[in-house]
């Protein structure tokens, strides 16, 4: 599932957006992703005693070279919040979405 949280009406009750900013000459936009969104729902159990990690494997070129992450969105739907509340935090799901960086631009002169 690549759909980030909050892309339909009131589907997210809390969201955070983390992104790169600035760049060469301070004139780059606040995010310059190279890929589309990828998303996963992660769970934390027993008040953090056991957690679900998220190894990111899609941020790479076809030869395996890593690109890094450009932008992350974290959010919770009302159902995730209710589950956390009902279980008094013993089960705490979160939706995480990310987009990868662009590769460094190749440049020169065509001779």
């Amino acid at each position, binding site marked *: 599932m690549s759909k980030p949280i909050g892309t339909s009406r009131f589907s997210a009750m809390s969201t955070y957006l983390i992104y790169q900013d600035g760049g060469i000459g301070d004139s780059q936009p606040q995010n310059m992703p190279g890929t589309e969104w990828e998303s996963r729902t992660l769970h934390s159990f027993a008040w953090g005693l056991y957690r679900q990690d998220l190894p990111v494997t899609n941020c790479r070129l076809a030869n395996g070279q890593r690109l890094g992450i450009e932008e992350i969105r974290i959010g919770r739907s009302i159902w995730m919040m209710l589950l956390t509340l009902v279980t008094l935090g013993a089960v705490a799901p979160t939706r995480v979405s990310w987009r990868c960086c662009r*590769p460094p631009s190749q440049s020169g002169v065509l001779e």
Partner: protein
Amino acid sequence: MLSPEKQGLQEWASVHVTHPTTVAEIINVDNVGPDGVLLSGWEMFRFAGESLDLLIRQARDAGTRILPIGSGWALSRINITDGWLVNTKLLNGCYDIGDQYLHADYPAEKRPNVVLAQAGMQIAELNAYLELIPRNDADRRAIQAAGIGNGQTIAGSVSGNTHGSQLTFGAMPDWVAGLHIATGSGQTLWIERKSKPVVNDAFVAKLGAKLIRDDDIFHAAVVSFGTFGIIAAVAVETAPIYQLEFGDIADPSYADLKKTLTGFATTPPANLYHYEFIFDPYNKKQTAMVGSAPKVPFKPGVPTPRPRWIIRDKFGYAPGINLLKILGLFRSFVPPGLITGLEYKQYRKIALLNRCRGTPGQIYTSSVYYLEGYIESAYAVSVGDAPATIEISSEVVRAMRLPYINQVRLCRASTGTLAFTHHEPITAVFEYGMLHDGKYPEFERRLDEAFRKAGIRYSMHWSKNSGIDPAKLEYMYGTARIASWKAARRAVFGNDQTLMKLFETDTMVEAGLA
């Protein structure tokens, strides 16, 4: 190299989440070569084109539609498909072209200003390449037209007809000198004007492409929103580095503004490069805000001005994604004029360029993460019709009690066959941001009715509209332009109906362009 995500059917939405959809697959294309080595130079351009051509043939074999995607900034359904979505953003190389590969007739003084940029290069990356990487000021260059932001890809901004506010130049498609396109025929194409050739046969041979030198095909292919195949690279005509100098925001009366616009229709101003104005349809004072700038010589060391459209405060807080959805619920209780009054003040504070100087790469950096649930309608008229359009637009807005202000940017008429910025001598683009609800198509329906009643020729922005049908398309462009565009498309695909159908989006079918 092609890298399908191999996730099969998946939900996808543009940056502004205006039309969520399900695509059959997302395929990333990058510059890694067959041996796993990151390619550069000629090899990079050639292999990227061949990879895209191969991908199109695979789509044909799979019987699925295919559509390239840039940054996904379009607010209309122009970038929506149910087939394969091709992510070109990893194709972001840019090279100067050696003199020996430029056409003998191409003017000597312009030769250092032509670059070959890959389709997925972001405008911000192109600006950095042109303005910041050269060590000597004399070698720095700048793009000749830009939108208010720089997050679009080169191919996306060109084929979707992104416009800026360049009174004496045109819109972004107007800086294109040539196109490297993959159509699935087994050999890529290099398309340029016969009347203004830019590269020679040796250049085309290096790309492994077939040369099409034809004005009609070039003008049609430039604004073709992904339906002429997949653009692999673009030859960009840039200008020697320059800056723009914005003074104080002016607050003319409607009467003075209309007089200025009427004057532009007969005598385009030689001393202004950027010109935009904002008006509040409910403003009883009948005044507008004007931001304008002349082109001035490059002065080294000018710091980048504070970016406009940054809606995050100094503590990092910004409106959340549910804000507009909540505001939409209250809209019917609050007088629209009260909301537009607040918007007007905020626009002056955070959006309109004011008392700053900089290069295009420093000035046009807006990258607001559009609020989800927001959409825009943009319609273009000749500048001579702009005074009447202020009234028409305001009347429709007031009749529908819509609580939004209007932004208008002016640019010289474009040459693209279906460029919505084609209105001579200067095109005025009216942009109207609003909530994405049932009032959006109704707003455009009423506008269309009012324009026809007033006898004003207009055109809708390809990336900012609620839908274009054949009747509307004919009113906007006339039968000759539409026929020319279709003929050019057939020529590009060698009249191969199977390949043409791969690139038929619902939007173009509904518009009668298939």
